[in-house]
């Protein structure tokens, strides 16, 4: 199981281009849809916590998933898996730095990959959205978050905190009645 987890996160680490959120569709496919190690809600919780903690979101998410699946050892296995592909690649490039810089083919490959990242993230959102079956209130929150992040210079952490706090206040009031 540990080896399997390591390999899965190694795959995730190896195909995450463009940082942070680009790995969400891949994690979703591999761990939520295919292996069913965690469900959609747990996955969103992991992302929320990863976002609110210091450090790279990809690493934070793998630590959380690792713990969830197999405790401390699981966390180590998943983190190693996520970090190693980038460590190995960069080390190779750092050693052979100059050969890498001018390469037309690599440029072309990335011209194709970058728009694919947009498609993958959008597709992950669509799938999570379909499964969550939110009402108008939650749709408004998601859309509001999207607009605030796109048009205003506000750190996502504040929105995560506001979402959690707002929900506690509303539910508290509801319980009192």
């Amino acid at each position: 199981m540990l080896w399997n987890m390591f390999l899965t996160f190694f795959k995730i680490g190896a195909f995450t281009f463009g940082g942070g959120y680009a790995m969400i569709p891949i994690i979703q496919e591999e761990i939520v849809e295919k292996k069913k190690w965690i469900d959609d809600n747990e996955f969103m919780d992991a992302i929320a916590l990863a976002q609110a903690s210091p450090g790279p979101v990809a690493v934070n998410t793998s630590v959380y998933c690792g713990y969830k699946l197999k405790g401390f050892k699981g966390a180590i296995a998943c983190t190693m898996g996520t970090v190693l592909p980038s460590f190995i690649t960069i080390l190779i490039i750092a050693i052979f730095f100059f050969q890498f810089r001018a390469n037309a083919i690599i440029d072309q490959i990335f011209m194709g990959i970058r728009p694919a990242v947009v498609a993958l993230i959008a597709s992950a959102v669509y799938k999570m959205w379909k499964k969550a079956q939110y009402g108008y209130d939650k749709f408004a929150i998601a859309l509001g978050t999207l607009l605030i992040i796109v048009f205003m210079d506000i750190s996502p952490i504040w929105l995560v905190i506001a979402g959690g706090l707002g929900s506690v206040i509303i539910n508290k009031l509801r319980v009192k009645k």
Partner: protein
Amino acid sequence: MGILLELFITFFKIGAFSFGGGYAMLPLIEEEVIQVHNWISSTEFIDILAISEMTPGPIAINSATFLGYKVAGVFGSAVATLGVVMPSFIVMSLIFHFVYKFKESPYVDWIFKGIRPVVLGLIASAAVTVAKSTFIDIKSVIIAIVLFFFVTFKKLNPILAIVLAGGLGVLLY
């Protein structure tokens, strides 16, 4: 030994004090490695960014590995990478245990229920942000639409989609 410790502490600090991941970490990395330690020039820093864009993995890890190597060879890169990952590991461990301890509490349940739609919005905004810098011509928009269709409705694996997209890039550009 001194330089290795310095690398570790610097990247531990970067890991511990940068929130939001990805590009949100850049200002702190820049300040530490260029202004405070003078390990690289700003041109070299831009090179590292370009390389990070084209290689897999989180940008913080990529810069830690690269700088560690530049300052102190293979050991340096291992130490810097470990340093940048460590705070994540420690903080997420604490959070995980905390969440599990209070799993039954209605507050934890409420907090997460409130956060989930926000997270969905955040992920959607990531797609918009990447699209803004990526949709440079009609070809890139078409690549995105076609892949969105196949991944969403035809169950195309995302990893396969990335490989395919790389091939499309070579064909179209």
